[in-house]
């Protein structure tokens, strides 16, 4: 039998811990000291992040490919016989994430130096960026669910701070609240998952959890584990359904953080934050955390939980892709696109394609950051055209158009990232999306029946994705510039310029990184070095009654269909692109009338524009229900509870008055009576004391005579 404490024994001292601590310390230092540097905050924070990026690259090169990674364990604190441990795991996914988080954060720091140049609260902004990076690194490096949860919450906090960075804007502070609350709902699930696992295994160390999960078994429908704790045998038994429940509960955390259905509504609203922050949230930090956490607990998920994960992922991918079709706001398009791509990653995890999911997370990080930063360049340059007289929404695609001539570099960067998102060959997005689609297909074939619907949704999303992103490209960069006509100020045209180098360098780097040759020369994902570096764990550790079909087996069964799947996905993407070009090419009906377009009236388009009315549903039904309930409770509180309290208080007062009267009249009456009597007696007796000595003698003699008479007779 296994001894629990064997899993938790601290590892021998490893100098690597200094590197890990340094990785944490630098962003944290940036958080604490940015305020001291005032105007120089970008330089200082950027420098710290650059050092951190170098550190993480060095660390990644040093420990690349070590299976199963370097583990550092230690004891945090002990209470009684229970030890709380911490542990770090440096394996390939963690190292890649480490580099991506630091690198993208660095690019965002550089980009923001120009983007936020005129913002007074610049030091605060950079401090938050530091905190955000720090929190994300915690999730990446720690290998203990308790610590992951702590940093998970910190990520939530820092995203709240950054989304609400311009808190004087009502919409920004509302969006920040929304993001935070939606995340809290997901976190509740995550916490529940932790509790279930802790109840069963009495530890939250992921390495130990994996081994203990392997030791657990199903007996008569019960999920049983026995092990030794400090030499004494411990048996835990739960209903078998708790095993699935634990997986689903952990997934709830990812649903919140990675913006999955039904909690994804916060992400489009999160566009209220500064654009570089959106890039950071959407590419490297916030939303990646959910998928990364899923990959960490992947081996603990059973078939049922994985099925839920897959279905939720597919639904999210399709819903968000539909919502992105009709948005006017360029950032909204990108936001829904992120939700949709996250749906893909989660779908990949659900169908057992751990490697494809992570691979898509990595490639998506680059091209989505590229898209957001390009959009940032456009927004920033358009913002410069705004004067006191001419005000317009700088994110609205209705005022853009024809920007290719003014901002060629931005155009090409945006285009390349878009094609990567659409999934055309030669771009990184193709590699990862293809991997996901193949795995989804294999899974659907294995499950059969209604599960083909999931595959159908995944493929439908491919064409929708290509369409909406090409629509954005056409509307923003082709045709003629619509703003001067809308505002009647033709002289404005000449003022629009390409962004400066600070803005463009990060964008260009990210655009280059969205080409597939960076990640592998072949057009197949299987040959990519990055894909190969994140192999799916060969065996899941849940008891065999609950185990999901392994990816390798599924792929082996469906393996012969690769070519037509690739052709189909590329064909769909091309179809989407061509349709978008035809509809929105300069001179086409939709493109010409686009500047005057108002919110849609047709119910079908409205479904897309208002994101399936999900927000409306939440506001009208859930929020209203909660508010009504709160009002009722408030009424109950005010009238009934407060009434009771007041009544009680009033009774007390009345009783107190009665007691007071008793005291005053009865008790005091006795005291006064006694005093009065004594006084009267005193007055009587004092009259004898005349002070005249002769009187005294007289009375003495009178008494003497009476005494004599008394004796005489």
């Amino acid at each position, binding site marked *: 039998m296994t001894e629990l404490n064997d899993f938790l024994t601290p590892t021998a001292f490893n100098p690597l811990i200094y590197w890990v601590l340094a990785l944490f310390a630098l962003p944290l230092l940036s958080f604490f000291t940015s305020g001291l540097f005032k105007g120089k905050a970008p330089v200082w924070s950027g420098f710290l992040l650059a050092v951190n990026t170098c550190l993480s690259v060095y660390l990644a090169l040093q420990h690349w490919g070590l299976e199963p990674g370097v583990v550092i364990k230690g004891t945090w604190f002990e209470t009684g016989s229970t030890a709380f441990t911490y542990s770090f795991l440096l394996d390939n996914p963690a190292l890649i994430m480490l580099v991506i988080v630091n690198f993208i954060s660095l690019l965002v720091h550089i980009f923001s130096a120009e983007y936020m140049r005129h913002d007074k609260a610049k030091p605060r902004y950079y401090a938050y960026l530091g905190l955000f990076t720090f929190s994300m690194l915690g999730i990446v490096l720690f290998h203990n669910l308790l610590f992951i949860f702590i940093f998970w919450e910190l990520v939530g906090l820092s995203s709240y701070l950054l989304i609400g960075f311009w808190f004087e804007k009502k919409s920004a502070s509302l969006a920040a609240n929304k993001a935070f609350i939606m995340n809290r709902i997901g976190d509740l699930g995550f916490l529940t998952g932790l509790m279930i696992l802790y109840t069963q295994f009495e530890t939250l160390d992921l390495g130990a959890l994996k081994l203990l999960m392997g030791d657990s078994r199903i007996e008569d429908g019960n999920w049983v584990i026995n092990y030794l704790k400090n030499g004494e045998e411990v048996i835990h038994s739960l209903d078998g359904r708790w095993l699935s429940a634990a997986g689903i509960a952990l997934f709830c955390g990812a649903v919140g953080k990675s913006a999955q259905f039904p909690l994804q509504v916060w992400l489009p609203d999160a566009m209220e934050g500064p654009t570089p922050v959106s890039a950071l949230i959407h590419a490297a930090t916030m939303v990646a955390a959910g998928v990364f956490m899923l990959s960490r607990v992947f081996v603990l998920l059973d078939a049922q939980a994985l099925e839920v994960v897959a279905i939720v992922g597919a639904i999210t991918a399709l819903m968000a892709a539909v919502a992105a079709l009709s948005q006017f706001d360029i950032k909204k398009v990108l936001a829904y696109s992120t939700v949709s791509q996250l749906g893909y990653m989660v779908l990949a995890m659900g169908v057992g394609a751990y490697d494809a999911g992570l691979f898509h997370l990595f490639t998506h990080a680059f091209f989505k950051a590229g898209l957001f930063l390009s959009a940032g360049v456009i927004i920033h340059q358009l913002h410069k055209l705004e004067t006191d007289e001419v005000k317009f929404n700088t994110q609205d695609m209705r005022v853009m158009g024809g920007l290719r001539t003014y901002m060629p570099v931005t155009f090409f960067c945006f285009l390349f990232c878009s094609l990567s998102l659409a999934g055309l060959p030669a771009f990184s997005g193709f590699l990862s999306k293809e991997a996901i689609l193949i795995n989804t297909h294999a899974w659907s074939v294995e499950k059969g029946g209604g599960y083909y619907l999931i595959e159908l949704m995944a493929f439908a999303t491919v064409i929708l994705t290509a369409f909406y992103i090409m629509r954005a490209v056409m509307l923003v960069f082709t045709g003629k510039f619509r703003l001067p006509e809308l505002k009647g100020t033709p002289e404005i045209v000449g003022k629009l310029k390409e962004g400066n180098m600070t803005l463009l360098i990060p964008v260009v780097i990210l655009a280059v990184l969205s080409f597939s040759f960076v990640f592998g020369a072949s057009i197949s994902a299987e040959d990519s070095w990055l894909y190969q570096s994140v192999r799916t764990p060969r065996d899941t550790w849940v008891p065999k009654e609950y185990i999901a079909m392994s990816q390798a087996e599924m792929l082996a069964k469906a393996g012969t269909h690769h070519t037509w799947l690739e052709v189909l996905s590329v064909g769909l993407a091309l179809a989407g692109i061509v349709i978008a070009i035809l509809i929105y090419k300069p001179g086409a009906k939709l493109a010409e009338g686009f500047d005057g377009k108002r919110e849609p009236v047709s119910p079908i388009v409205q479904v897309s524009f208002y994101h399936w009315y999900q927000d409306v549903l939440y506001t009208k039904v859930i929020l209203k229900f909660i508010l009504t309930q709160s009002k009722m409770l408030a009424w109950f509180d005010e009238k009934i509870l407060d009434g009771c309290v007041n009544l009680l208080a009033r009774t007390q007062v009345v009783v107190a008055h009665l007691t007071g009267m008793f005291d005053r009249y009865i008790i005091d009456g006795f005291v006064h009576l006694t005093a009065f009597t004594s006084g009267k007696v005193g007055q009587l*007796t*004092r*009259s*004898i*004391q*005349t*002070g*005249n*000595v*002769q009187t005294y*003698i*007289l009375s003495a*003699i009178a008494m003497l005579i009476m005494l004599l008479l008394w004796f005489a007779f």
Partner: protein
Amino acid sequence: MPVEHLLFLGAVLFCIGLFVVLTRKNAIAVLIGVELMLNASNINLVAFGHFDPDFLQGQIFALFVITVAAAEAAVALAIVVKVYQYFQTADLDKISELKG
């Protein structure tokens, strides 16, 4: 001379002394009354001393009383002098500091 006459004289003298003590306003006069009463008791002592010719206890006791009376007069007069200095009067009706 029968002893009754002597006792009668003593009683009369005592009553006069008592009357003086009770009625006179002046403190000195009261002291004189006290002397009268002491002497009345002396007469009684001497009168009864007649029945004790061997030891003459009555006479001896009368000598003691005279001595004590002299001492008493000295002390009382000193008090009266101090009282007079303090109250500027020796009228007993006016000295009623102890009136309750």
